[in-house]
Structure formats: structure tokens, C-alpha cells
């Protein structure tokens, strides 16, 4: 009876912690990593490990230097590292990983106050920076089953299906089953739709994410590419190529659902995902660039505070906007 604690209620709390949520996200990304190692060789795992180490290390060093509490244990830097790696081609050199990590952690996250205060997804900012600075390195897509750990100088490259859609001379389109399983050129983490879906289902079951953003996002892209198919393709083929490639599943399940940079209310999340879908379609169809997922999400990240403001829930008992129901 010596040490009685007097605190304000509630006196019990749920067991869910930020670090646990981040651990779940990392677990959910593992199937896609395994698929990537299967198709691109062990180097995919090496790049991923490199990015995670660089991200966590950068966060640690930065926080030490500026004298802020070190928060690497919350797991957010590790998730950023993994997602950044998933957005890189397997042939990326180590210094690309380092620069991407520093941009993601220092510029996109820590400059704005650290976890919870960044207004854009750090991994996507890192990727956008690298893509703008080293476009050749960032779009060198290795053909599945052509490499091991070391990328040979004469690596067999393979254009992504979306690039082929833009420029039919670039190669032959892969089959839908291959695309679903991941046998196509692309970033480390984006190729296997099946593996990403598996991770997504895990996150939904663990209640880390809701299905609102992924489903709305993917459906919007599906409907738009079905109704307005690419020239020379049937509506169905156009839809399938568009949803099974270009990192749509990676973006919709793992990046657009980032808590910090997506709206907080359910209605807001649907508007956000609709916006992502429409922008992705517009960029892919009318832009010079074949992909579009990362820029769409980044653009919608920026309007998230506005969406949050528009979609404030109606407070319980605010009968000015809606009459209380009568029995």
C-alpha cells in the first residue's frame, strides 16, 4: 500500500501499439518480398535489407544529432525502408538506396516533426526524388529469372506492361496469370499481385487497415480503364493490364492506406481513394509517364487536410443537420 497511483480514467487500455501495427505491416509485406526473391533473385532481399538499415540508421543519427528522442523502436522507419525498397528496381545500386532513405527520412519525415507530422508518404517522396534525379537507373527493369545476387552488365531488361501499352514496340505483353503471380518486369515489391493481396488480407484481418481505400482505389482504376480502354485493347484487357501492373496493388494496399497521410474519417478515405484512382487513370492515359500510382498518392496526400476538413463527422446530437429519428 505504499505506492498508490492516482491517475485520471480510463484505467485500462487496449493492447494495440504503434510498434505492433508497424510489425503487422512488415509481416504483410513479406509475401511480396518472397515473390520478388523468387523472380529477381536474392538481390531483391539485399536491396530491401539495405533500405531498411539506411532508413532506421538515418532516423537514429538524425535524432541523435538534433537531440530529439530516438523513436526507431516504433517501427515506422523500418516500414518506410521496406516500402522504399519495394519501389526500386532490383538492379538499383547501394547509393540509390542510401540517397532514397535519407530523402525519405530526413526531408519528408523529420523536417516536418517526425512520425505523425509528415504530410506526404516518406517512401514515395524518396522514390519520386530518385525517379526525377536518376530516371535511367530507376526504370531499368530486370527480366524475371535473369539474375542472382550480382546484376550482370548485360542484364536482360524487360519493359513493364504499362510501358508496352504506351509503346507497343517495347515488347510483348505478358499473360494475365503471369502478371497476377508476378512474372513481369517492375519494381521489387510491385510485381506479384497475388502476394500483395495476401498481405492486404492479413492487414484487414488484423484490423490494421480497412478495405475502404484499397477497394475504392482499385475499383476506380478498373472502372475508368474499362469504360475508356487504351487504343487497340478490348475493355477487359485494358482493365486487367491496368490493375495488375504499375504497382497499383502495392500503392492501394500499402501506401494509400498510410495512416499519417490519408484522411482520418471513413468518408474522407473514400474520397481520397477515388481521387487516387482518377489521378492514376489520368496520368497513365494522358501523361508521358506510364505509371502514375506514386504521383497520384502524393498529390492526394497533399489534399488530405482539406478532405479531413470537409468530412468531419456529424456530432452525435447535432440535430441541426439531421433530425433525430423517431421510433
Amino acid at each position, binding site marked *: 500500500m505504499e505506492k498508490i497511483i492516482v491517475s485520471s480514467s480510463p484505467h485500462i487500455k487496449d493492447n*494495440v*501499439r504503434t510498434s505492433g501495427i508497424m510489425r503487422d505491416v512488415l509481416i504483410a509485406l513479406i509475401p511480396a518480398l518472397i515473390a520478388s526473391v523468387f523472380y529477381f533473385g536474392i538481390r531483391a532481399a539485399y536491396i530491401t535489407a539495405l533500405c531498411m538499415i539506411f532508413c532506421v540508421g538515418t532516423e537514429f543519427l538524425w535524432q541523435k544529432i538534433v537531440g530529439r528522442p530516438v523513436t526507431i523502436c516504433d517501427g515506422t522507419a523500418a516500414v518506410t525502408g521496406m516500402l522504399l525498397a519495394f519501389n526500386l528496381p532490383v538492379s538499383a545500386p547501394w547509393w540509390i538506396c542510401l540517397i532514397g532513405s535519407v530523402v525519405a527520412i530526413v526531408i519528408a519525415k523529420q523536417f516536418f516533426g517526425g512520425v*505523425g507530422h509528415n504530410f506526404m508518404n516518406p517512401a514515395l517522396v524518396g522514390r519520386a526524388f530518385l525517379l526525377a534525379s536518376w530516371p535511367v537507373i530507376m526504370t531499368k527493369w530486370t527480366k524475371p529469372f535473369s539474375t542472382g545476387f550480382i546484376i550482370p552488365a548485360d542484364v536482360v531488361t524487360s519493359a513493364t506492361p504499362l510501358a508496352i501499352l504506351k509503346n507497343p514496340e517495347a515488347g510483348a505483353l505478358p499473360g494475365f496469370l503471369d502478371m497476377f503471380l508476378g512474372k513481369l518486369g517492375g519494381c521489387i515489391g510491385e510485381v506479384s499481385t497475388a502476394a500483395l493481396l495476401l498481405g492486404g488480407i492479413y492487414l484487414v484481418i488484423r484490423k490494421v487497415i480497412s478495405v475502404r481505400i484499397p477497394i475504392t482505389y482499385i475499383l476506380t482504376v478498373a472502372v475508368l480503364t474499362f469504360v475508356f480502354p487504351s487504343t487497340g485493347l478490348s475493355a477487359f484487357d485494358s482493365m486487367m493490364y491496368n490493375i495488375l501492373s504499375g504497382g497499383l496493388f502495392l500503392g492501394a494496399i500499402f501506401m494509400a492506406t498510410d495512416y499519417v497521410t490519408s484522411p482520418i474519417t471513413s468518408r474522407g478515405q473514400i474520397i481520397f481513394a477515388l481521387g487516387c484512382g482518377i489521378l492514376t487513370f489520368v496520368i497513365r492515359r494522358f501523361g508521358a509517364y506510364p505509371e502514375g500510382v506514386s504521383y497520384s498518392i502524393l498529390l492526394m496526400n497533399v489534399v488530405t487536410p482539406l478532405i479531413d476538413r470537409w468530412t468531419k463527422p456529424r456530432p452525435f446530437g*447535432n*440535430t441541426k443537420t439531421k433530425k433525430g429519428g*423517431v421510433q
Partner: protein
Amino acid sequence: MAKLTFSGGIHPSGKKNATKDKPLVELAAPEVLYFPLGQHIGAPLKPLVSVGDRVLKMQKIADAEAFVSAPLHSSVSGKVKDIGMYLNHTNSKVLTIVIENDGLYEEAEPIHTQSIDDLSPNEMRRIIREAGIVGMGGAGFPTHVKLSPPEDKEITHLIVNAAECEPYLTSDRRVMLEMTDDIIGGLKCLMRLLNLSKCYVGIEDNAPEAIALLEEKVKGTGIEIKVLKKKYPQGSEKQIINAICGKEVPMGKLPMDVGCIVINIGTVAEIYRALAYGIPLHRRIVTVSGDAISNPSNLYVPLGTPFSYLVDACGGTNEEVHKIIMGGPMMGIAGVSLDIPVVKGTSGLLLFSEKYTRHEEELNCIRCGRCVNVCPMKLLPTTLDMYSRRGDIEILIENNILNCMECGSCTYVCPSKRHLVQSIRLGKQKINATRAKEAKK
């Protein structure tokens, strides 16, 4: 039948198994009892006795002239030992009547002797006030006031709150199982008082035995049992009204503004005892539980009994006590000492060991939206938290902070372990302080 519920809310582990099947144990009164005068919402009481006086069991020992107030009765016969400042359930020292139990339990005259069927609504209200009955759920609002709505408010729904959504607590459940006839008798009186032919009893689906028993007994009485989904805070007044009759109490308004009166089930049993036998409120059921209690129990306790006495009756503690909670773990108040006595609103006494009191660092909000999803009042707890810490009163009011009922669901779910409701509470206090200052000018 579809189970009724409200939007939002959380699902904490019920923890009721420790006591839900344990019958009430009547606790004998200790040698010295403490009756703090502030046990209700309303005008403060004045002692009617002086030091050295002999008082009888159920004798009125304090009252006030004001309408919004409820008198206090002794739970034993004995001598007034002291009237002074002692620790009460708000952790502050307040004027308290201390009575030394003489062990004779000599009873005072009942507060009325009329037949229950002859009582007019106004007589019933008078008796309910005279019996010192307040909401037994914890808030302590005088019941006769609740039962006296202004004439322009037509009451269409009487709702009995038996949701008992707080974990650990099982006192309402024991009332339903062991005082069933008192409840039904009380409800018949209340329906007569309010001129209603029907009333509703809301019970959470985790009390099937209580639901079955009441269903059986209420046949033909106009009392309807409404099964509610187990969810916290189902027992909140506005949420239970919403679940049972689909109405939304407007912000800043009272249940009577939508034609509803909500009464706790334990209060109903007390009302019956006052109306039928003239017995004033002088004891109550307290669930004593928590991981540090050796033998968790439901005790029927004379008001004024210090907590330490209840703990002894439950076999003492089996672990070092780190927290004393009066009420449930979600909204209960942490007490500073086991010297605090049982008052009218003490629904539970929980003792927790270190395991349940670990402090966790607050992290940054990651905007996961869990607090927004669970808020039963549909507020934005994380936004309120931010502005509350900044002290930005205007924005807080704009975001309806005053609509927060402090149920604590947001703090419960927060993965960053932020003290959301605590900071919102501070924000509300800042607003009240500012308003009080302005009123002075």
C-alpha cells in the same frame, strides 16, 4: 431479435466472471461509519444532528431546503462521534458526519406508512426525495428531480438502464437476479407516476440469465426487455436512448427533451423499497474486484463503511495494491486511500496490482483514426487533444468539445497511448474556468 446498439464504442474484456455468479453477501456494519455530506449533485446538505446525539438506523441526519438535493440517512444506530472534515470519494476532505455504531440497529420510524397503491404521483416524488434516492449508477443526480419534468416536456419513454457496460462491475446484474420483485414493483410505480403504460429495460446480451428471469417475470406488466449488444459505453444515457428508441438527444439538451427518462436499475429497486416500506436509501451493492483482491465479491454494504472493511470482507489482498478505483475501470475515479467510505454512488471498488498500472510513454499521433471511429459522440478526439494542449478554446468549442462525455474510449484504443480524454477533460476545464471568469466580470 436483432440486438440493439449505438454507433461507435469499444469492446474491452468484460472481466465479470470473477463476480457475476456470486450472490450478494450482506456486510455487517463496522464500528465507525463516515457519511460525507456531498453525495449528490445539487445544493449542499446541512447536518441535522450534533456531536454526541444518538441517532437511529435510517434516521435522517442531513438535509437541505433546496429542491435539487437529497437528504442523507444513517445506516446504523449509535452516537455522533464527530462532524468534521474527512476524506471522501472525490479524494478531498469534506464535511462528514462520523457515527459510532452501538450494534443495536434500532430503527427510526419509516418515512411513510401509507399503502403503496394509494400514493399520488406527487406523494411518490416527495417520498423518493425524502428517502434520499439519487442515481445509483454513479452520477448521483437526485431521482425525484429527474421524475419531475417541466410541464411542457411530455415524457413518452421510461428507460431502465441495466446495461452495466463497465468491465468488472456486476452489481446491476445481482440486483436483477436477486431483487427482481423490487424492480418490477418499482417500475409499476414509476409507470403510474409518469402516466405511462409501457417501459423498457435495456440489458446487455452478456447477462442471459438476468434477461431470461426478467422476461419471465414481466409478462403482462407493460415492461419490455430490450437486449443490447455488449459494448462500452452502452450504459451512457444518450447511447441507451439511441439504442432503444432510435432518438438522438440534441447537443446540450437532456433526455427529457426527447421525451425520455433514464433510470438505473438499482435506483428502481431503491424507489420500490422507499414507496412500499418507507425505507430510505441507507445501503447499496458494491462489486469488489480487480486482480489484487483475493476473493472478488458482490457486497451489500451499509453506506458509510470504509473501503478497507470491504477489502477485509473479500479475504484481503493477494498482491501489492497499486491502484484503488471507485466505480468501473473506464470512468471510475482512482482513490488515494482505503479510508474512503462507501457513498450512494459507489458501484464498485477495484484494486489493481502493478500489472494493471504500468505507465506507457505517449508517442506522436499517427492519425490512425481509431479514436474517431470509436467516439460515441462522433467527435474528433485527436483534434481536440491537439487544440486542448495548445489551449485554443475557440477552436475547441467549435469542435463541440463540450459534447464529450469523457467515456475514455479514445484513450482506450489509442495505439500511441496518448492521454486523449485526459487532455480533453483539461480543455473542458479551461473553457469552464474562462467562462466563470467572464461571468464574474
